[in-house]
């Protein structure tokens, strides 16, 4: 599904100081994988996730998404790919505070460029029901619990029927019990819906629940 070839990512902090976040990364993620990217903070795992999620471009190397060379794509094309194929779940939930639960979940459908095979509102309500958020459709994010917010975020990520879910420390802001619920939810998505799920984490306990562990340290996969 995603292939990273000799990827380097450098940040120019000032004229002479260059920080290398990723060094010669080669990585293939297959369809329907359940993987984790694990490493301490500053190891480059978030940078790697952003590259996989087509939010950022590498300094060197090539990224293939379904065998398409992403480096040759313009912003519009990349945006469409993100919209259609990738769902993001963030540590901070990143819901838009002024929009209701339902509106947050519907957000990505506004930017759809292709015909969707579903009625957006019906699908959103269906997801709300599935994630136990019934009755919260019209609530604003600050009126529901952290666990509920993260479930809204997952529902939002699933809205467009993505092939890939990228979860960046999805349990980082939740207590252990709620965190486990979220993890189970992601696991379900992988097992029942055959969606590729990649969890980025620093917690070995969480990583051990995934089928594949990609360990990264100082910008290199070990």
């Amino acid at each position: 599904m995603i292939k990273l070839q000799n990827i380097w990512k450098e940040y120019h902090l000032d004229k002479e100081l260059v920080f290398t976040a990723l060094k010669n990364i080669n990585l293939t993620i297959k369809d329907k994988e359940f993987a984790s990217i694990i490493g301490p903070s500053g190891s480059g795992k978030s940078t790697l996730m952003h590259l996989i999620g087509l939010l950022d471009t590498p300094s060197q190397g090539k990224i293939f998404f379904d065998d398409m060379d992403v480096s040759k794509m313009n912003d519009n094309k990349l945006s469409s790919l993100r919209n259609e194929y990738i769902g993001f779940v963030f540590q901070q939930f990143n819901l838009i505070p002024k929009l209701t639960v339902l509106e947050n979940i519907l957000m990505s459908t506004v930017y759809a460029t292709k015909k969707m095979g579903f009625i957006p509102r019906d699908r959103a309500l269906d997801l709300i029901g599935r994630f136990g958020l019934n009755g919260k459709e019209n609530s604003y994010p600050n009126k529901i619990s952290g666990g509920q917010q993260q479930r809204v975020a997952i529902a939002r990520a699933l809205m467009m029927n993505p092939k890939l879910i990228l979860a960046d420390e999805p349990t980082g802001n939740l207590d252990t019990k709620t965190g486990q619920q979220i993890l189970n939810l992601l696991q379900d998505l992988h097992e029942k819906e055959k969606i590729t799920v990649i969890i980025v984490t620093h917690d070995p306990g969480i990583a051990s629940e995934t089928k594949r562990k990609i360990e990264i340290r100082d910008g290199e996969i070990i």
Partner: protein
Amino acid sequence: MKYAIFLIKTAYEDFVRNKGRTVLTSLGILIGVLSVVLLMAFGLGLKKYISDQFESLGKNLVMVMPGQGFGRDGGRSLIGGIQFDFKDINKLKRIKGIKAIAPYFMKTLKVEYKTKSELSMLLATTGESFEVTNFKIAEGRAFSNSDNEKSAKVVVMGSETAEKLFGNNEDKVGKYVRIQGQRFKVIGVMQKQGGGALGSDFNTRSIVPYKSAYFLNPTKKFFAIYLKAGDGINISNLKSEIKSTLLKRYKEDDFSVTDQVELLSTINSIFSILNLVLVAIAAISLVVGGIGIMNIMYVTVTERIKEIGIRRALGARKNDILYQFMVEAVALSLIGGLLGLVLAYLIVALIYNFFPAYIDLFSVFLALAVSSIIGFIFGVFPAKKAADLTPIEAIRYE
């Protein structure tokens, strides 16, 4: 369509969230549009008022005045220029096509009745003058040429002066007033002319036969000569004939021959320029309003960088972000423009009884178009800033 609704809804939600800020930002545009539209409305009202005044004087009116008349030298030579005498009048009388002639001697003085006294513009002229200028009599009668020949001490008064001297209920006709110590009998009162502040000029006149006013005009000279052309006479031919007659005695710069249409267009063009300058000055406030919008849009963009990042992650293209902020800027400006227009309309409606200002369709169109354009111009830079953020920059922003 759905997308447009989404954009407008997003803008609306942001306005509701920041009510105070929205109102203050729109206020800049509101004031700008209000002042521009009001000035245009006043300009139009003034123009209409002047045209009405001229039309009430009747067509076929030709005016012979000292100097270059109105306009060309700013009317300076109207005062202290040449004066016309009977030689001129008699020569002009001989020109074919002139139906009536009215030389004018003018003086501002006090008209007294019992203990009351009113300042009035005295016009000493012929009986024909009422025909020349279309002045209508409301009560009594006008004086005739034979009254003039008899040097009859009679006066026809403007409505305002008559009202002030005699009050509303008393009979005005038949009363005697004193002008510079001489007794004049009021034989007629003129109809009220025009409506506004400028019209009072017509309504405070006192018209007397010129022969009865020689005690005020011992040199027997006249300030201006008004002529009425007969129906079907070519005015420009008549004007050149009048001109060549007077050129035998005076230099070209000493006098001017103008007709209604020419005078009206001169005055109109003066007012148009004046109005344009005023509107241009008012338009500066629109630019200031626009800068206010730009400022707030930059703040809004900065506040919402994280949101932009989330939207980009969910698949929003650069243009989606650009449109979102553009719509917001234009809507902000348009709200101000609309409110300014409504307020201008209310003010015009309120003062209509005192001054006939009016807002035409062009002003409405201009106000809305200009406020949209201002929103567009001043919104494009902040919106571009938002759109040019890379998704990763935006989503990492705290």
